[in-house]
Every structure is written in C-alpha cells, then in structure tokens.
C-alpha cells in the first residue's frame, strides 16, 4: 500500500506549517492510516516535537532536510497510507523538491495582508518551480479569530481572486501550544475538543480531494 503525498508548504515563517502537518499526521495515525511524517525543515520542529513525551502518538517520522528529500520520500512511502511533508518556511530547493512529489499541497495562510502576499509567492514557486506542472493546491486559513471581520474579509478576497481555499479554518487556539508541551496534538489530548474537530474537518477535505484526484487519474 502506497498512499498519496500531502506537502504543507508556505514561504512565510510562522504560518502554522509544522502545526498543521503534525496535527494531520496524528489525526491520520489515530484513524489507522499509518502515516509517514517527513520533516524537511532544517529547524527540525516536527522532529523536536516527536522527541517529547507523547512522541506525536507514535507517528513514523523521517527527518530529511535536504534537496534529495523527494527521493527519500519515494523510497520510504511504501507501506504508509499517506505521507505528510513539512517544509522550510523560506524559499529553498528543499521546498521545490517537496512540492514536486506532492499529490496535494496545503498552503497555510494567516488572515493578514503580509501572509497573503507571501502565500501568492508560494503559489508562484509552485507554478514555476516545477516547470509548468502545477500540483493540486489549497490554501488553509490558520490562526484566525473566529467570527472576526478580517478572517471573513480575507476569505472572501481570496475566493474572489480565484485562490482555492479549504472550507475549514484552523482557528487560533491555545490547545495547539498546550498539546505541543507534551509532544502531542489536540487530537491526542482532547479528542472531542474543538481543535481536534477542526483538524478532522481539514483532514476530511484533504482526503476528499485526494480520492477525487485518484479517481480522475485512474
């Protein structure tokens, strides 16, 4: 069984790439998909999280912050139901390599103009970095304040400009940082909590996209 590759990429630091990647990996681990989490970020954030007590619920982790990461992914993804790649938060060959093997690219973007600008640079890299071949991508609004005007405004603007967005947001919650103290994610610490439900919603959308894509290319 060789599953699809989901790359979480954004050229903006602090947009929530590692949090999103780890949360998705743990969610899919709890669902029994046997995910592989690839830490391609030289900051080693995901690896450091996995070194803590809860070890991300035992998710298989591959640390490979190297432009050859795509080969490592190809070699190791067999036997895993899905592969999630966390990328560096700056423009690098590693990011391009991780984008090139992706079946789906998730771009976390905060509801602020600076983040939106950088998200567009990410999309540009996505389109030009891999020689005109653009994998499926979706933006995910992260760290939003629920019900805020700016969140709704940015969502409406992005939709109007044609950028595909996931319906589910990843809202700003202390649960993520609290869970990270244990090396866990909200899905492990509070499985019924609102943060875990948000992650589940994002994961469901990603799964739906991947299965649609698989059906179209079969």
């Amino acid at each position, binding site marked *: 069984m060789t599953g699809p590759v989901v790359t979480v990429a954004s050229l903006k630091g602090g947009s929530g790439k590692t949090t999103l990647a780890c949360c998705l990996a743990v969610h899919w681990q709890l669902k029994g998909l046997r995910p592989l989490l690839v830490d391609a970020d030289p900051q080693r954030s995901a690896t450091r999280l996995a070194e803590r007590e809860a070890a991300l619920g035992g998710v298989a982790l591959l640390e490979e912050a190297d432009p050859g990461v795509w080969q490592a992914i190809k070699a190791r993804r067999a036997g895993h139901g899905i592969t999630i790649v966390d990328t560096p938060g700056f423009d690098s060959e590693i990011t391009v390599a991780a984008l090139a093997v992706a079946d789906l690219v998730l771009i976390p973007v905060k509801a602020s*103009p600076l983040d*939106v*600008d950088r998200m*567009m640079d990410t*999309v*540009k890299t996505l*389109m*030009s970095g891999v*020689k*005109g071949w*653009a994998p499926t991508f979706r933006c995910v609004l992260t760290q939003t304040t629920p019900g805020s*005007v*700016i969140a*709704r*405004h*940015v969502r409406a*603007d*992005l939709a109007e*400009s*044609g*950028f595909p967005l996931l319906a589910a947001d990843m809202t700003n919650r202390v649960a993520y940082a609290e869970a990270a103290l244990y090396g866990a994610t909200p899905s492990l610490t509070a499985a019924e909590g609102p943060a875990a439900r948000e992650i589940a919603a994002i994961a469901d959308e990603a799964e739906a996209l991947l299965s649609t894509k698989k059906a179209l290319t079969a």
Partner: protein
Amino acid sequence: MTKRLPKTSTRTLDDLRDAASAALAEENRPKTRAPENPAADATAPTERTARDEKPDRLPEPVAPPKPAPTSLPAVAASVPAPSGLPTKAAFREACARLIIERHANFGAVAGLVPVPVVDLAAIAAIVERMLRKLSRLYGRPLDTDRSRRLATAMLTGMAAPGIASFTTNGLLKMTPGPHILGVALTSVSAVVLVRIVGEVYLEELQGEAA
C-alpha cells in the same frame, strides 16, 4: 460586514498563472527549433483564457462543431489565432488531437517491443487508455471494463485490413535473422493503427456531441 476594508491583494490566481506560463514560454523559446513549437506556445495562453472565460460565455450559443478535419496539419488550423477565442468545440477537438498524437507516439514505442504477442498487448493497452482519455474529454467517462471491450472491438475491426502485416511481422520477429525489419514495420503500423482508432472514435464522439 461591519467595517469597510480595502482589498487584501490586487493579484489574482490568473495573474500568477499568466506570469508562470509567460516565464515558461520565455524559457522554452531559445530551445525551440521545429516550426510547430511556437504554435504550441501560442496556443497555451489561448486555451487558458478559453477555460477561464467559459462561465461568462456560457449564455452565448455555442458554435456548431466543425466538420472533423482528417489531415494532420488541420490541428494547427483548428486552433484560431490568439486574437479570437477558440470555440468550445474547436478547443476540445485540439485537445483530442493532442491525445491521439501522444498515444500514437506511445504506440511507436510499444511497436518496438521485439516479442510478438507482448507488443500487441501493449498496443491494446495504449488504445484503451486513449479511448478513456478521449471519452473523459467529451464528458462521457468510460469504466475500465467497457473501454477494454471497446478497444478490443476497435482493434480487431481495424486490424482486419492490416491483419496480414501483423501476422507476417510476428513471423519475422520469431526468426532470429531479420529482426530490425520486423521491428521497424510494427512500430510504423502501430502508429497508424492507434491514430486511425483515435480518429474514428473522435468522430463518433463529435457526432454524439453535436
């Protein structure tokens, strides 16, 4: 909305797409040597606009599909100059022709397989894949089972005039000496076969669409 906020960004996804395709075209330009390549470059933005404009154009009556051109140069002719947007039918036909060309080229490679039965199986698989792609383009997805039967039917139907050439080639391949002769023959006949099957099926699809 309680507050009036200015736009977050003036760039749209289409701007980024255009920039990326322009950069790609720029990159490809020095390398182009065949006359067909600039045409291919020129069609890329046109196709893109056609797709993007589609929602706006829907209320307008769609132009009737053109009669299927049979000769190869018609590919270029069926794509209008960048000034006028191609009709949906013309765009689809150009796409279909690209699919057929691509699979005919696959057929050339499959024909090179120097084992008598295996190369026929490979060609059948290519034809099947081509039929599925064409059907999807025309909004009639085929399931695998049906496409396989259709491919077999079309191949055997088509192969009737060409059957002699196939069997002699099979014999040529089994004899150890004149290998090269058999290889070249099947490669060429595979291209023709795949292309004819594609053309016939495309005509059928266009007839249904009209």
